[in-house]
């Protein structure tokens, strides 16, 4: 505990602040932590219960180790497996493409002599301002006309478009910190724009690009609204839409299977979070600095 807090503590004592007030702080934190852990605990415990032995009420103690069976049921029967693969494809490919496209646009707006950079900035950035609902109906019509409805390509296109604006925002903010002297020196040495982009800006911004990718991977992986609007069949639907379908059959498959499904679809983002915690939060916290 730091020097300052110790002094603060002494002062608190001197002022005879009640002891209960000091005990209240850890108690409050512990209470919150417990409240937050209970649902997670129930999630794991009940996903472990064999589906046939579920008693109709949540279990509070471990009843068995049927997690693998439950996951298999959700994976095979409810088609989570197909959607899982589809979503993995969407999230990885669209995340990468969106980051590349956004980085190129940021390069054009920040480094290159594009006229009216602020206008272009707002044109691209406006994509993140509006709720998805404003795009949905015309997108549906557009997709029906172009035969893109219920195709993997269609979903991938819209995910890239949806991911570009915020990735652009993050990357642009970082690109403005690259000193323009670097570009000028490279130009004087005769490097082309492409070479400057690939050899100078991208390597310098590795962390920012990583943060943008993780953010967009998570966004695409978690998407439900675009998925249920623009797709229907099992091997095209993203995984959250499949989970919704599974939940709709609550009665027939039983809570353990559904919870096992929820657990499985959370694995990729959870792993990303635990491994790259700093980068994971960086995307979202970038706006707070």
């Amino acid at each position, binding site marked *: 505990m730091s020097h300052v807090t110790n002094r603060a503590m002494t002062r608190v004592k001197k002022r005879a602040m009640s002891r209960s007030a000091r005990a209240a702080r850890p108690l409050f934190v512990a209470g919150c932590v417990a409240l937050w852990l209970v649902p997670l605990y129930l999630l794991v415990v009940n996903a472990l219960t064999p589906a046939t032995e579920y008693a109709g009420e949540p279990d509070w103690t471990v009843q068995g180790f049927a997690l693998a069976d439950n996951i298999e049921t959700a994976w095979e029967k409810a088609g989570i497996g197909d959607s899982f693969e589809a979503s993995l494809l969407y999230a990885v490919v669209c995340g990468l493409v969106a980051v590349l496209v956004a980085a190129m646009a940021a390069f054009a707006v920040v480094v290159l002599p594009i*006229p009216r950079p602020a206008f272009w900035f707002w044109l691209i950035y406006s994509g993140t*301002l509006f709720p998805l609902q404003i795009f*949905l*109906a015309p997108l549906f019509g557009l997709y029906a006309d172009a035969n893109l409805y219920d195709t993997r390509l269609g979903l991938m296109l819209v995910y890239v478009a949806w991911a570009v604006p915020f990735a652009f925002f993050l990357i642009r903010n970082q690109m403005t910190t690259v000193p323009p002297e670097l*570009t000028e020196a490279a*130009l004087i040495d005769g490097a082309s724009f492409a070479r400057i982009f690939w050899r100078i800006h991208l390597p310098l911004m590795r962390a920012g690009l990583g943060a943008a990718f993780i953010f967009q991977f998570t966004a695409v992986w978690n998407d439900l609204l675009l998925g249920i609007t623009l797709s229907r069949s099992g091997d095209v639907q993203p995984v*959250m839409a499949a989970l919704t379908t599974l939940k709709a059959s609550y009665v027939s498959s039983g809570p353990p299977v559904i919870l096992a499904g929820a657990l499985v679809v959370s694995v990729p983002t959870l792993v990303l979070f635990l491994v790259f915690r700093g980068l994971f*939060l960086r995307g979202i916290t970038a706006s707070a600095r």
Partner: protein
Amino acid sequence: MTEIATPAPAPVKARRVRRRVPIRTPHQAARPSARLGGPLAALPWALPAFAFVGVLLVYPFCRSVYGSFFEDNGFNSSFTGIDNYTRLADDPIFGRSLLNTLMWVAGTLLLPVLLGLLIAVATHRMRFGGAARMVLVLPFAISPAATAVLWNFMLTSDGAVNQVLRGVGLDTWARAWLLEWPQNTLSLIVAGTWQATGLNVVLFAIGLRAIPRDTVEAAELDGATGWRMFRYITLPQLRAVTVVVVGMAVVNSLKAFDMIWILTQGGPSRSSETLALTMYRETFRLFHVGYGSAIALVLSVIVVASSWLYLRRQMPDTGWAKS
């Protein structure tokens, strides 16, 4: 427009650079090399982004605004002017939906934001404070749909919440949380709190760590402790972070869809719908496409208006933000 196009800090940088090299701002940096293609050389770099955003976001946006003036069932459409908007005024479902949306906004400010601030302050410089924050932010890494499935399990009539209430002898408190208004909306807000609070805690913690130690020490020398320290030192120093947290929380609560859709589908009898869900149901379930577009536009206006406060802060270096 020329003023807008020039970023605000440019003059400062130009002054700094002018001492060494002929006048340059960052955007003009590459201009001398007209042999590389002049001002149009940048366009190919930005084109993919404009294509994606233009075709799949900007065009649908304009089409939505345009379509909101039509009576449209998905097959036939006829121009009806602002009828869709006047219909909103005396649609009881829209009224309920608006009320639910307001409850979401107020509830989000009251629970995830206020609780986030309290927890951040409580865990600041506390032993195991980092671990506590880690636990709280864990639900943020779980997708909203999975969270919704989990909370469905908690909140159904024979779910964990009622089980606990009956277990501790509060049988009268146990109820069908998701089947009656307003408790279904309130339960949904609590479920949303479980997911959203962690992020606010992290953001506030960043803000707390940024408070200069000198300020805190000076206040301590002047005898500030406890509540007075919080009220007159911590809170004012957190103002910038608070603007962002409040802005994001309000916008996210307005956009909330997954949780409500999975837990109640807006029901029963559309009682827990917010604007985001009303739009979806009107457009894709009832095929009132024009009416749905009008709701989407109302929602968009509310979202953009309420994000303006923190947007201004986010864009400190574009001309528009300053004006």
